[in-house]
């Protein structure tokens, strides 16, 4: 299983801080597409961390990996 953590407005859109999914062998891009459709949110520009390390859209998720989605914000 994999834990997926949502930050900021993504958390509100999803309605929970974390969800659990089995993602072994899936890419970050595939996960983004699934989440995007299920929760109707745009994840195109959102950064992904796997086990607290930056991950590209091509990266393949392993059993037990913790994934976090961090949306860049522009306010200042």
């Amino acid at each position, binding site marked *: 299983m994999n834990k997926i953590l949502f930050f900021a407005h993504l958390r509100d859109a999803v309605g929970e801080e974390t969800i659990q999914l089995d993602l072994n062998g899936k890419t970050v891009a595939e996960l983004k597409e699934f989440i995007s459709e299920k929760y*109707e949110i*745009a994840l195109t520009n959102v950064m992904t961390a796997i086990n607290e390390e930056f991950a590209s859209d091509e990266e393949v998720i392993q059993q037990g990996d913790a994934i976090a989605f961090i949306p860049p914000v*522009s306010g200042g």
Partner: protein
Amino acid sequence: MDDRYSRQTLFPHIGIEGQEKIRTKHVLMIGAGALGSGNAEILTRAGIGKLTIVDRDYVEASNLQRQQLYTEEDVEAKLPKAAAAAKRLQAINSEVQIHAVITDATPEKMEDLVEGVDVIIDATDNFETRMMINDISQKHQIPWIYGGCVGSFGMSLTVIPGKTPCLNCLLKTIPIQGMTCDTGGIIAPAVQMVISHQSAEVLKILVEDWDAVRTSFVSFDLWRNQYSSMKVSKAKDSGCLSCGENRTYPYLDSENMMKSTVLCGRDTVQIRPPHQHDIHLGDLSRQLKALGYSVKGNPYLLSIEMEEQRLVIFKDGRALIHGTKDLTQAKAIYQRLLG
């Protein structure tokens, strides 16, 4: 005022020697809003040699809730932020050389502004200017520190040319998204926490304690009690157009800048973003409605009613701002709502 910096020189990583370095350095601050005013105050109190503050805006009532250098008097006088900031900063520390520049930071102006600068602090409210800072930083080998916040959420990244990945390595493009301080609101504690991270990094760079510089992307949410530190060294991309082997500095090219035009005789400005990005109109509409805006739409566009203007945004990111002929104001409205 002999004793002025004693608590800072007592801090072993700065010391007398570090204080001397701080006194000879020049920091360039792009933006004098919430992040800008807080960072400027810390650096001025810390005894920075020279501080250049660039801002295009003037002080408004809605700034006072979080922009720490300004008072009710500045709002009444409609003072430009850079000028109001300089006035307060000089009262705080008359030893510091404050250079206030009231202008919109364009690539051309940046080329002049970075002359002799040791660090650039990002205190802007949009990614277009940040990506330009990112390119300028790489071109002139000057470190810069990204900061952003909205609601109770904030983030920061330190970019050291030749050492860390740059913002373009991480984001690949200018993000379009509907969550800014003008839509999601902002609380002052989140602003201050971004400032804490940015200003600590600036001090490390000024005293040349390179080993101490943060190499992770920090983000936090003070209301939800979240804090995350994401390692980014793997993100460094040799194909990056800003910092890679065949770099072109795309965001210094005015072709890639936002275009704004007054539509003749219509009291309307058209804004065209540099790249065609499809916007998720349904998503944007839900966000804006949740925040109390009156939003109407169809599959091709959204129409958003504001106090004195109306903004119509198309799926490709192009927008019409009705009710103004002021290009800078229109651009600012667009960036506020769309980041």
